[in-house]
């Protein structure tokens, strides 16, 4: 598989603060990647470094196998960072034509791009009159001008109203369906969950997890149970090797599975031990719970 971006041990320090700490991952062609992390976890800094606007402190990155200089490589990349940045006194069309000149792309791409984001009828209006949603769509149009090999989006739905969010997500999904590689940075879990196949989880500049979204947590889920004899239930569960952590949450006992076990065989097992359950639910953690689990672990080990 073709590697588009390779990041190795990337580190960025702002004085004493370490914004990005020894982060490594690869972006392979055709996948949709998410960079997930709370605000201030180093997502934007990492993207800023590979996009040539932030200087790295140490480590390395290379675009397209290192054959091109960074700014040449960026002509084959489409990127939107945080806020849409255009010249306010120019129209949408003029702004995109300027980007065409910078990227060395033919001007006829402008109409095509504007059509994708549904801004054709507003192309001759000045950028400063646009709503945030329209600005963000224009930014996506601009990023698509060069038919990029990879599209980088940093918090693309930040600050938008529900309708705007829906529009942007729709556009992203359509682009992903065309086979374009996407790197999406977000602090919104469901956004990443809905769109991405791979994820990099960052927290305080460190990468906690790099891999497929559905392999993010190797656990086998957890069961929530209730019965008349709670102490006995707890004792039975603790003595069984199939269970890891067991906690009490209000009136329920929550047990995390160490091995694959379906609910009916668990029920059967407990019944044989003389416990009849009044409540039994087996669930897998949602991405959100997995994410919180991941980030919590690092806080406690520190």
């Amino acid at each position, binding site marked *: 598989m073709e590697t588009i971006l390779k990041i190795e041990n990337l580190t960025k320090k*702002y004085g004493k603060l370490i914004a990005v700490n020894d982060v490594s991952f690869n972006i392979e062609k055709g996948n949709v990647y998410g960079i997930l992390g709370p605000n201030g976890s180093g997502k934007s800094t990492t993207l*800023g470094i590979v*996009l*040539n*606007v*932030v*200087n790295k402190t140490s480590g390395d990155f290379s675009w397209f196998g290192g054959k091109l*200089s*960074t*700014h*040449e490589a*960026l*002509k084959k*990349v489409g*990127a939107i*960072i945080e*806020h849409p*940045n*255009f*010249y*306010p*006194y*120019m129209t949408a069309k*003029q702004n995109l*034509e*300027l*980007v065409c*000149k*910078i*990227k*060395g792309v033919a001007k006829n791409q402008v109409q095509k791009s504007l059509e994708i984001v549904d801004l054709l009828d507003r192309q001759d209006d000045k950028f400063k009159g646009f709503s945030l949603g329209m600005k963000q769509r224009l930014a996506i149009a*601009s990023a698509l001008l060069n038919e990029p090999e990879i599209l980088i989006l940093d918090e693309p739905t930040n600050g938008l109203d529900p309708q705007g969010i829906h529009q942007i997500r729709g556009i992203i999904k359509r682009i992903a369906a065309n086979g374009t590689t996407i790197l999406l940075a977000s602090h919104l879990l469901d956004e990443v969950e809905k769109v991405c196949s791979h994820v990099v989880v960052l927290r305080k500049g460190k990468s906690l997890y790099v891999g497929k979204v559905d392999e993010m947590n190797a656990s086998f889920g957890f069961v929530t149970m209730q019965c008349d004899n709670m102490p006995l239930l707890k004792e039975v569960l603790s003595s069984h090797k199939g269970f890891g952590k067991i906690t009490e949450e209000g009136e329920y006992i929550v047990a995390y599975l160490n091995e694959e076990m379906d609910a009916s065989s668990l029920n059967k097992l407990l019944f044989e031990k003389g416990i009849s359950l009044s409540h039994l639910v087996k669930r897998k953690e949602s991405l959100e719970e997995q994410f919180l689990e991941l980030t919590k672990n690092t806080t406690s080990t520190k």
Partner: protein
Amino acid sequence: MIRLLSIELDKIKRNKAAKVIVSVYFLLIIAIALIASIEFNFANVNFRIADQGIFNFPFIWHFNTYVAGILKIFLAIVIVSMMANEYSYRTLKQNLIDGLSKKEFIFSKFITVVGFALASTLFVFLVSFVLGMFFSDHTEAIVIFRDMEYLFAYFIKLVGFFSFCLFLGILVKRSAFALGFLIIWQIIEGIIYAVMKWQLFKDTELADKIINFFPLEAMADLIVEPVTRLGGVRTIANQVGEEFSKSYAVNWYTVLIVAAWSAIFIYGSYKILKKRDL
């Protein structure tokens, strides 16, 4: 290079404020012709500027480049803001992300500035030439094309000044503050000169020599004021017992100093941009 220039010109020509100021600038250069109509009284003598021979070849080259040199502050506003706007619109960041290198970015600004200086020099040449053809006592080619070094000095002066403006724009990031800094810098040079002249190197010529190496002073030195060269002014000065004995020529070493400052400013801008996280 043409690509970079056209990127930059696109940014300027669609900016209404910039367009207005640039037009005013070139109109004001034409307005130099109006000086011909100025009349005033000085020491009970009636003066008509036009009679003083200011539009005589080759003196007109000196006079017009000096007067047009004062107008450069108008273009400075455009240049400072074309740099500072890239920060306030955050388009500098976007330009880099879109695939412009930092070197290309600075270079595109620099060639635009050189373009401005070139256009202004050409314009001053044309206006002076036409004015001279109207008012000059001598219109022989050999007289007309004497002292052309003033035009060269004018060009170097503009490039130096505009490079300084670019540098301030990128250093300060805000147009108003950058222009303020420009004025403050002029005052700083004045204070440094005063301290050297009357404190450090009292009763020597050293202060006058050192100040020549400062950027704004060097730019001012390129074209010495032409007024005391005028016949009428000389006559009056003689009557009150004064005599002017200074050189009005363009000095090669001043050209060199200003060229060196231009290089320092442009390279400095690049270094700042390279070091900065956006």
